[in-house]
């Protein structure tokens, strides 16, 4: 298969087209700009829809309309724009509409900067909008994985009738890596009998998140809860490195996991039995990854490009069975492998 050298943002865009994305609605923001630029060029050529909306708010509501009409649809943005989309994401979840939302995260809060960050973890995994809802969140750590997850993201969105988010970062979006577009066998997807396409030959279809009767809304909430529990049971993904013998684990996702990988190699050269847990889904969070290594694990070090957000999930997963330490660089700064290596040594020292 042909190997191409592509920027993360462009590879993601090409993967979306190949995965059958029919329309894109978005609003410009750095550092994801190459993605809409690529789609603006390629979507019309292939008979698809590209539309630059007047705002992120309009864009996510166009996604809502298109998803409700049965289309495979996506939007992309970065932190500040994703904040604006939260109302729409809440409606999409309430109305159970499938779509892909890409967040190429930058530093915050506020306007922050345009450098890579992981400070939108809470927003992505806890739901930045109102109401009881969940979105599936994928956190790729290479351009190849980014591409592969796009296919899965669209499919899972359709299977569960739920928005799926890809949480990248400025480095992943901007860096060039070799990538292969695998032609995956398509999954059996449920027919979209609920879509509003005009009621020809059937009864009326309604897309809504409104249930004025609290008895009915509670039923709807329990139905969503059942779906979220199914997703938690079936869709957790993670990678463990040196799980067979490691005693000291770094926990990191996305680009941070790439740096952490170098750090555990350094640690092993220095005689520390170091390993890595890399969650690929941030929601549902792969708690089993921790259970699997708990009999040997002496301590965990969470490394994030933030003040510490995923560490809450690490602590919930470890559940008091081992100490959990944190090392982070917020604001768009990125740690070196040496920085993380030193933190691994500190963890070992503190845990002896």
């Amino acid at each position, binding site marked *: 298969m042909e190997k191409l050298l592509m920027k993360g943002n462009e590879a993601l865009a090409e993967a979306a087209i190949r995965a059958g994305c029919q329309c894109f*609605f978005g609003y410009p923001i750095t550092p994801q700009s190459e993605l809409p630029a690529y789609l603006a060029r390629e979507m019309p050529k292939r008979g698809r829809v590209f539309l630059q909306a007047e705002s992120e708010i309009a864009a996510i*509501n166009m996604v809502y309309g*298109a998803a409700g009409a049965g289309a495979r649809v996506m939007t992309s943005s970065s932190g500040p724009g994703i904040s604006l989309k939260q109302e729409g994401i809440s409606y999409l979840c309430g109305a159970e509409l499938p779509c892909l939302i890409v967040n190429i995260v930058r530093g915050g809060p506020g306007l922050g900067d345009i450098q890579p960050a992981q400070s939108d973890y809470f927003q992505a995994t806890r739901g930045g909008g109102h109401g009881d809802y969940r979105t599936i969140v994928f956190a790729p750590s290479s351009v190849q994985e980014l591409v592969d997850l796009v296919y899965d993201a669209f499919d899972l969105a359709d299977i569960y009738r739920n928005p799926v988010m890809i949480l990248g970062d400025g480095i992943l979006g901007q860096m060039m890596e070799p990538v292969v577009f695998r032609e995956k066998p398509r999954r059996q997807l449920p027919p979209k009998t609920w879509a509003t396409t005009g009621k020809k030959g059937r009864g009326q279809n309604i897309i809504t998140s409104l249930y004025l009767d609290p008895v009915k809304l509670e039923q709807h909430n329990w139905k969503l809860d059942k779906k979220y529990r199914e997703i938690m049971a079936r869709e957790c993904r993670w990678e463990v490195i040196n799980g067979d013998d490691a005693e000291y684990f770094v926990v990191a996702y996305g680009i941070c996991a790439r740096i952490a990988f170098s750090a555990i190699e350094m640690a092993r050269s220095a005689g520390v039995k170091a390993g890595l847990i890399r969650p690929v889904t941030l929601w549902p969070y792969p708690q089993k990854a921790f259970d699997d290594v708990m009999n040997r694990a002496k301590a965990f070090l969470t490394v994030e490009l933030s003040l510490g957000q995923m560490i809450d999930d690490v602590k919930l997963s470890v559940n008091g069975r081992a100490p959990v330490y944190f090392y982070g660089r917020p604001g768009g700064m990125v740690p070196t492998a040496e920085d993380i290596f030193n933190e691994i040594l500190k963890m070992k020292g503190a845990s002896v």
Partner: protein
Amino acid sequence: MKVVFERPRSLQLTRTHYCPGCGHGIVHRLVAEIIDEFNIQEKTIGIAPVGCSVLAYNYFDIDMQQAAHGRAPAVATGIKRVLPDRVVFAYQGDGDLASIGTAEIIHAAGRSENITVIFINNAIYGMTGGQMAPTTLVGQKTETTPYGRDPKMAGYPIKICEILSVMDGPAFIARVAISDVKNILKAKSMIKKAFQMQIENRGFSLVEILSPCPTNWGMTPGDAMRWINDEMTKVFPPGIYKESWEVLA
């Protein structure tokens, strides 16, 4: 026996939640009659807003989506771009369209999105209990302008037809009142023209409808109709503001 009056097919046989004397029932019926007359019930998708008409999907017998507050034109855009051969209309009130949704309506019009917008202007927020709307008249008393709308404090009414009519995008912009039988018939012909514009692929169409809200105006239904003719039409003159029969490229 000859049938002289019947329920349009595109309306459901049900009781609405609208107050006595409310204009929504009249406009729902007009829109449904037009959908029937064009024979497009099976290819029409409506968008219900946030506001009193949020449950419009329980009254129209067509496919519908419920949109977040003010976002109906964006939702309509998403549907129409996916299904360009369907007829898509947004049904919005004045708070939805002229306050929280000003960006969406202006840009849908600017893109000449080939959709139809039914804009109910009753100069007040109905569902939340009678607060000032962007179209509340100067001096009009509401829950949040208890001494009357004072322009020094609360500004002036927003005139949507006037704003949209200076733009290049829209194909058809008109304002009507449903204050008496003659005006209701006029309103129907304007709404029909708006749908015709879309069906003929001529671009964005919007009809603003001056509509009574006796409950929140604190009037009898009859007085409310008279207030539209006597007061609202002075600030919001009915008429065709833009009409362009060019076909979209």
